[in-house]
């Protein structure tokens, strides 16, 4: 009897394990192995995604889009992606790619720092890249973004918009909101940039806009809790906010839901999110991970891959806050039929409703940030 019960539990555990692992393995690019054999001289690129995996409509999708572009343009014949379900498997996944002769191994997300540091030392002849962190090895390119610059611009935009109560969806109160995911330094970098942007407008325009700030939690769960995100957004809307900017991964889904319910606005983050709730997401603070990943692949192809920090900012559109027209993910969603033409029109209308003076002011602020005339505080540097 005892043995039998043990057996059953074992079988269950194995099932759970298989289900847990196969999520990543099943999803790898199926053609990759066949094609790789045919064209062995082509570059082999492998990428280890961050939590959320493929289809996060954010960071990972953006990185994958960069690789697809490289594939379409013939820089690489194909690429392989892995989706670790836990931080503890990241190291294994990175090593797997390095061992299997991938020329470039990319790690997405700050949580891969330790694993990538270790694995890149073990494989000195393989090129690595990490997104959102800095690893100081001779074979690692570190891609970082000036999120504080983008968030500053976003804060300035939200502060300017909240004063225009003639626009539908904007109330009389001068309050904007910020929804953070996990309470940690990287997200505080977004928050400080945003609130500084609001302050800047208060100083230059003589307004009195207040920013409400809330975090979903203090563990990585806080990036995956849309129900909590919705409650936080509702609380901020009820307290007078009409525009809420988020840096909270999947938790932001709750914000978009709340924006639709309360008929107010949200601002997306990382990868263009405007299409998720058409007409309710004013803009997205886009980190063009796709461009950055593409650049690394291209440098490798052209034999001028260099290690070190590559910081992307508002210049050359490494970071972008787009206030007119359709952004890349929205276009892709329209092409694939995820949103209808009517919904796309709603987004276009919304963007047209943004007063042109505001667009001009934002453009000027952007130029000033690039020129270094505005000093945007960086939380990570202040608190080191």
């Amino acid at each position: 009897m005892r043995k039998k019960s043990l057996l059953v539990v074992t079988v269950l555990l194995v099932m759970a394990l298989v289900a847990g692992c196969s999520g990543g393995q099943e999803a790898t690019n199926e053609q990759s192995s066949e094609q790789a054999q045919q064209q062995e001289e082509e570059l082999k690129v492998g990428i280890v995604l961050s939590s959320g995996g493929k289809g996060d409509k954010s960071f990972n999708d953006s990185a994958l889009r960069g690789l697809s572009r490289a594939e379409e343009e013939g820089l690489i014949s194909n690429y392989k992606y892995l989706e670790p379900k836990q931080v503890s498997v990241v190291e294994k996944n990175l090593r797997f790619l390095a061992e299997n002769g991938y020329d470039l191994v990319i790690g997405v997300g700050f949580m891969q720092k330790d694993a990538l540091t270790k694995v890149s030392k073990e494989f000195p002849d393989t090129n690595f890249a990490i997104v959102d962190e800095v690893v100081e090895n001779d074979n690692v390119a570190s891609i970082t973004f000036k999120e504080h610059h983008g968030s500053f611009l976003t804060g300035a935009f939200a502060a300017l918009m909240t004063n225009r109560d003639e626009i539908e969806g904007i109330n009389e109160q001068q309050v904007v909101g910020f929804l953070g995911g996990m309470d940690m330094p990287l997200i505080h970098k977004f928050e400080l940039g945003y609130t500084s942007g609001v302050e800047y407008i208060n100083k230059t325009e003589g307004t009195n806009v207040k920013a409400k700030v809330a975090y979903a939690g203090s563990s990585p769960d806080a990036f995956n809790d849309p129900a909590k995100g919705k409650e936080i957004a509702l609380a901020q809307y009820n307290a007078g906010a009409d525009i809420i900017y988020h840096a909270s991964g999947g938790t932001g889904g709750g914000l978009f839901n709340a924006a639709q319910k309360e008929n107010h606005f949200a601002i997306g983050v990382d990868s263009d999110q405007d299409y998720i709730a058409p007409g309710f997401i004013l803009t997205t603070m886009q980190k063009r991970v796709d461009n950055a990943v593409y650049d690394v692949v291209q440098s490798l192809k052209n034999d001028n891959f260099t290690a070190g920090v590559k910081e992307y900012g508002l210049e050359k559109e490494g970071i972008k806050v787009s206030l007119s027209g359709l952004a890349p993910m929205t276009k892709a969603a329209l092409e694939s039929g995820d949103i209808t033409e009517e919904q796309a029109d709603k987004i276009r209308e919304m963007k047209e409703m943004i007063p042109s003076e505001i667009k001009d002011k934002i453009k000027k602020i952007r130029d000033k940030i690039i020129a270094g005339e505005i000093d945007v505080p960086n939380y990570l540097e202040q608190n080191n």
Partner: protein
Amino acid sequence: MEILEVLKQIFNLQTFSSTLRMATPLILAALGGIFSERSGVINIALEGMMLAGAFVAVVVSHFTASPWLGVVGAVIFSGLFALIHAVVSIEYHAKQVVSGVALNMLAAGGTVFLLNILFNTSGTSPSVNSLSYWGNFKPTVYLALVAVGITYYILFYTSFGLRVRSVGEHPHAADSLGISVKKIRYICVVTSGMLAGLGGAHMSVGTLDVFREGMTAGRGFIALAAMIFGKWHPVGALGASLLFGFFQALQIRLQGVLPIPGEFIQMIPYIFTVIALAGVIGKATPPQASGKPFKKGER
């Protein structure tokens, strides 16, 4: 002036609604836990059952365009999912905690795996039709409150309830009186899965309109705490869930207003739970036979 502003932000209708909304999944899962544990089977797989329910609700709503069918599908599927736990722990006397852990892992991995197959994504599902409001709340909120009443009635005013409690306290005595311990436990574990599944459906097609990987974010375990803090009593669990929900709502509203970390406020209900477990505020005693497999003819 300042204090008045703070109080105004805390004690208003919105805080109350927020409390109730956030307590709903906890109430439903805690009721599920009560059914299971009152019959003598520990169920730490509430988290996984909720997650499975949340997922199935979205899938069914996606393919049928009916969120109500999604809710029904979630309840049925989570019931079947709980059946695994029932068979393993009742039929084969396995360690119930181990089986529970396995189910949680199966749900966490399985939902992402199926998300990949069905929607070709592993993060967030596409938006689906969600339940429409009944007055101020989604229907599932009312269902949760009704479920508290029904559970209370069943457990304490029906002969079935008496059997459940006797099986959980002293299965051998119940057995000697001709009560089928197995049957009662099967029914209770499956019911617990159905309630947890309803809680999951409330989150995915009630509060929201999407499924997100790991979206239950530990609520199944918080529900377990609510069940313990509520002393395995439906009304107690309701109170505990509301308390937990209230502190969550409070934490959201007090962030940046008071100079204390939000985690501190969120911690308060758990401190109470630990104190309750330690026996300071009234003793929290689990059903006697909870966690012990029943073997006929053994002492």
